[in-house]
């Protein structure tokens, strides 16, 4: 399966010197997806103005992690990493379908197969979009776009030999996270002098939790909808079989016809609704879930820096009092101060940008969702009324 041409990006692109990144193509192989990252740039450090490389998911993760681990970027919201392409569920369903081929009619089989393929395609498109959004955010960020790793990622046309983390590293990561969250709790307790940040902290915490909740609930809602749609499918094919079996005299023929209509009617309605909601709302929520987590991480880093700064201050005072290692304490304090201020400054801007982006994205998506729902609602109504007309006409 390969994705079609570049799709609209729902993130504001603030480009001065030209750097445009997109995923022009993607190929799905057995258990991995190969993305073709296409770059157009006027930046001097690239050899050409336009070029493409093939990247896999692990390489995106490597890039993201390199940002996170880079102290220089402590003051920025690191764009969240794209989620791993997950075709397992879809593949399983396809397999089950293949196994159950004997037990259902040919008609049912082709229909279900078509649907599963459509589902697969939808997941595929989504994962491509997520990866693309990540790259675009990086490209749009005034500081991150200059990152060396990023340029290597974009340009180096060989395999980056980035292997996935092995067990030991994964365990290390796990412990790091535990420490971080424990620390986060401690650090969160420190009241911030700056009103702006204090407000942001409370806001983000609450927002993040609620987005998480909303995202989970929307997922459940969509799953229920899909289940209902599957049932409708089964009902539709049963009705169809009933209708075809009965075609021995005229009235039964009509019955078959009307049942057929009913079936396509119901099917279109239910399946459409499920797809729309999925695309718009759930993706939006999931994305902002990750972004708000990234923002929280930024705040955490800033608070950490603040704590370090305060500790350095205390150490300096102690050193001055004891009149020992004063120079050392002074340099360390200055470093901390510098770090903290740098982070604070950029963090402020980042958080303001975050808000702007968020509002814009939600607004755009909600409007699109409403428009789509309205269009389908009108369409469904027409479909239903048409169906009714036919059925009643046959009486």
């Amino acid at each position, binding site marked *: 399966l390969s994705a079609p041409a570049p799709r609209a990006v729902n993130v504001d692109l603030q480009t001065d010197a030209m750097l445009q990144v997109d995923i022009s193509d993607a190929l799905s192989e057995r258990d991995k997806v190969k993305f073709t990252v296409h770059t157009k740039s006027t930046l001097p450090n690239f050899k050409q103005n336009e070029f493409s490389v093939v990247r896999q998911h692990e390489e995106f993760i490597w890039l993201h992690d390199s940002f996170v681990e880079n102290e220089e970027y402590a003051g920025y919201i690191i764009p969240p990493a794209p989620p791993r392409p997950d075709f397992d569920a879809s593949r399983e369903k396809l397999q089950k379908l293949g196994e159950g081929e004997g037990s259902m009619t040919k008609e049912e089989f082709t229909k279900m197969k078509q649907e599963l393929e459509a589902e697969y395609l939808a997941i595929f498109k989504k994962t491509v979009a997520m990866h693309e959004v990540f790259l675009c955010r990086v490209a749009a960020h005034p500081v991150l776009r200059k990152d060396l790793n990023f340029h290597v990622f974009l340009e180096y046309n060989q395999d980056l030999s980035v292997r996935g983390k092995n067990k030991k590293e994964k365990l290390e990561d796990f412990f790091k996270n535990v420490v971080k969250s424990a620390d986060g709790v401690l650090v969160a307790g420190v009241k911030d002098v700056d009103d702006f940040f204090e407000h942001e902290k409370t*806001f983000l915490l*609450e*927002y993040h939790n*609620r*987005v998480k*909740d*909303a995202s989970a*609930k*929307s997922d*459940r*809602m969509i*799953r*229920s*909808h899909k*289940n*209902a749609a599957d*049932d*409708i499918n*089964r*009902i539709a094919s*049963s*009705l169809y*079989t*009933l209708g075809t*079996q*009965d075609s021995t005299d005229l*009235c*039964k023929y009509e*019955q078959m016809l*009307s*049942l057929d209509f*009913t079936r396509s*009617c*119901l099917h279109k*309605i239910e399946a459409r609704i499920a797809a729309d909601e999925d695309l718009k709302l759930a993706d939006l929520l999931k994305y902002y879930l990750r972004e708000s987590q990234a923002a929280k991480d930024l705040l955490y880093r800033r608070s950490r820096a603040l704590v370090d700064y305060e500790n350095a201050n205390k150490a300096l005072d102690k050193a001055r009092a004891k009149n020992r290692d004063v120079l050392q304490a002074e340099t360390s304090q200055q470093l901390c101060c510098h770090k903290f201020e740098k982070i604070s400054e950029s963090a402020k801007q980042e958080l303001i940008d975050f*808000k702007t982006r968020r*509002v814009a994205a*939600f*607004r755009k998506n*909600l*409007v699109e969702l*409403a*428009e789509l*729902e*309205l269009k389908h*609602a*009108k369409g*469904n*109504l027409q479909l*239903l*009324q048409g*169906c*009714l007309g036919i*059925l*009643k006409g*046959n*009486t």
Partner: protein
Amino acid sequence: MADTARDAPPEQTDFHELEDGEELFPEPATTQESQPASLAAEDISTNSNGPKQDSLFDDDPEDLFAEATEEVSLDSPERDVLLSDGPSPAITPITPPTSVITPRIGHTHDDMFTHSSFDEIEEEEGGDSFDIHISVSDPEKVGDGMNAYMAYKVTTKTSMSLFKRSEFAVKRRFSDFLGLHSKLASKYLHIGYIVPPAPEKSIVGMTKVKVGKEDQSSNEFVEKRRSALERYLMRTVKHPILLKDPDVLQFLESSELPRAVSTQALSSAGLLRMVNKAADAVNKMTIKMNESDAWFEEKQQHFENLDVQLRKLHTSVESLVCHRKELSVNTAQFAKSAAMLGNSEDHTALSRALSQLAEVEEKIDQLHQDQANADFYLFSELLGDYVRLLTAVKGVFDHRMKTWQKWQDSQMLLQKKREAEAKLQFTNKPDKLQQAKDEIKELEGKVQQGERDFEQISKTIRKEVSRFEKERVKDFKTIIIKYLESLVQTQQQVNKNISYIFHYN
């Protein structure tokens, strides 16, 4: 009440009061095949003149009803006497008139009825158009604890001359319905009439109600049952023959009904029924019928397929109802969540938009919930009804096979007797010979009757099947239309709500 609508068919000669085949109970040794084809003379009530009936019954001296039927006319209160109380000997005789009819145990003679009888009844239909509407309402809990039961009000509105009044209501309980069905089944099933099955017993459901749990699920249960009972009665009276049955009429009209005790699940009658069902199943396997009529074979196959399809459809619809309920719960939760999100968003416009989204979702949720209810009552229940109806249909086909078998058995027996007689010709035993000749004569009569029975049941089944199919197509179409209409309504509501959110931005 004017009887002019009904012409007493002059050609009707032997209109006998026939007996029920419930001899099975006192004679467990007899096989199914020995059950005579019998029919309660519900038709008696349609005859206009009482006296005319006397002549009809003279031929059958052993008919206990001969006495009772003399006074019968539509206006006669003694009509209530004419109840077939054969099927359930366990009925406690509450009303004295019924005790006139003592359990006719041991009478296994065949009664004759003409082929023309049923045709004529159906022709009479033309005179009085089918206009009857029954509703079951006001479920009311009577009594306390484990002896409690639900009483339902059965209201009949009709303009048919069959009834004394045009609108009347009685109180009935669930076991009354079951009793009615069991009586009708014993009278009509084995001559080929598709008797609509009664709603199923539900020990769990009823126990909850008895115990007094006033919650959502027990209310739903009562409502489900009420609706099922209403459909059951409507289906029963739609059948032109069943409508005229005195049991049905009594059920609808009389204020007191003898308690149908034998319908209890764990009674001895219930156990006997189970044993009989098992015996039936075994017998069915051993009967090998030469089907001379392709129509029957085709129809049987058709019903088998239909059964499979309907069951599948039923499971899918039930599953859909379940998922819709889930969906509505999840939508509600999501709506709340979105509202919270809107609250925490400090950008006011976005906050408002999100809250609106939440509101809309909530409304949609409610609509989905209603849709789920609509789906359930209409489609799923109907499918369940039809699955059960098909069992009755298959039963009718089985009875035809049994009738055939009986006929064949009589023929074989006749053959044997003839051979025996031939042998006896050569011996010098005149009395034995005479006995053999008598037996042969009797058997010849039986064989003829068997053939007639078989032809009759085949004819009846054909008519019934065509009526059944017409009803089925009609029912399904109506249901689908209703379902689509409710979908349209829901969709219209949803559309209204969505345009609100759209106006916003």
